[in-house]
């Protein structure tokens, strides 16, 4: 089951978040503090992985309750997806969100201000919904 998606920009601001299965009982609790904590933990884990292996090998971490999938671009955009423990790696799907949805609809949209504060773009959020909901592990 897929719970939520967070996107952070290079200034570490959360520019997009989306929740699915809100009523499933697993309180992901979307709010600003939560976003900051998520950013913090991902950055720390990435840095540890970098120090240990000298490459960007941090892709996922799990707790007893949920699993996190992480994709970072060389431009420092960070995509974080929360799922249940059964879900297989969705890093490629995150990459796909970046390549086909973020770049096409957000980056190329003339009416989107350059340094995106929050993504308020129907084509993008609909695209994300469609992609996530089409995954076998969605429900």
């Amino acid at each position, binding site marked *: 089951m897929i719970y939520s998606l967070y996107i952070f920009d*290079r*200034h*570490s*601001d959360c520019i997009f978040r989306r929740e699915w299965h809100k009523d499933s009982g697993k309180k992901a609790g979307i709010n600003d503090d939560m976003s*900051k904590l998520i*950013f*913090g933990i991902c*950055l720390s884990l990435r840095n540890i992985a970098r120090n240990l292996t000298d490459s960007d090998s941090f892709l996922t971490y799990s707790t007893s309750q949920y699993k996190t999938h992480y994709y970072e*671009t*060389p*431009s*420092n*955009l960070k995509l974080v997806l929360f799922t249940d423990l059964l879900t297989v790696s969705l890093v490629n799907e995150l990459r796909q969100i*970046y*390549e*086909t949805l*973020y*770049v096409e609809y957000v*980056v*190329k949209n003339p009416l989107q201000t*350059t*340094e995106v504060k929050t993504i308020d773009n129907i084509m993008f959020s609909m695209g994300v919904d469609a992609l996530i909901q089409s995954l076998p592990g969605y429900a």
Partner: protein
Amino acid sequence: MSKVRTIGADVWKHKTDKVSLELFTLMYGSIVSQLCDDFEHDYTKVNQQLDKMGYNIGLRLIEEVLAKTGLPRCHSFRETADAVTRVGFKMFLNITPQLGNWSVDNKQFSIIFPPGTNPLVEFVECYDERARRELWYSNILAGVIRGALEMVQLSCETEFVSDVLQGAAQTELRVKIIKVLEDEVPQGEE
């Protein structure tokens, strides 16, 4: 390295929707012309505005480069410079400008456009004496490079040092890498 050599051409051939160069050139000409009007031919201001527009473009365009090429982080400035000309310029404008005039410390280099290779100036001739001296017609490119490199953590300065439109033998864009930027962390953390 070998990937950098070929991937720009590859993306251009297989993954790029194209548009007529004339529409592009005329669109840019129209913008420059409008700026000259709006800023009452204060070319310093026009240059700044073009640079600012380019910077905004650079911040966005790099995402498309990364998405379409899957290029990893570069490990040296020479590699970066190669990526700018062979991937960046190739996949957007279908040209590969030359690199040259490297400084001894490898932190400064020039992107060189021989006459007839810069698509922005395809139909352009500068008639006006003062514009010929003061206007950097292609200044948007200086901004694009600065913005794009900043997004991959390279803070740099960019400026044109010569231009065919000003009567020079070639158009030269100088790039000086200032520093490698650190990750930004949220305020109140650390």
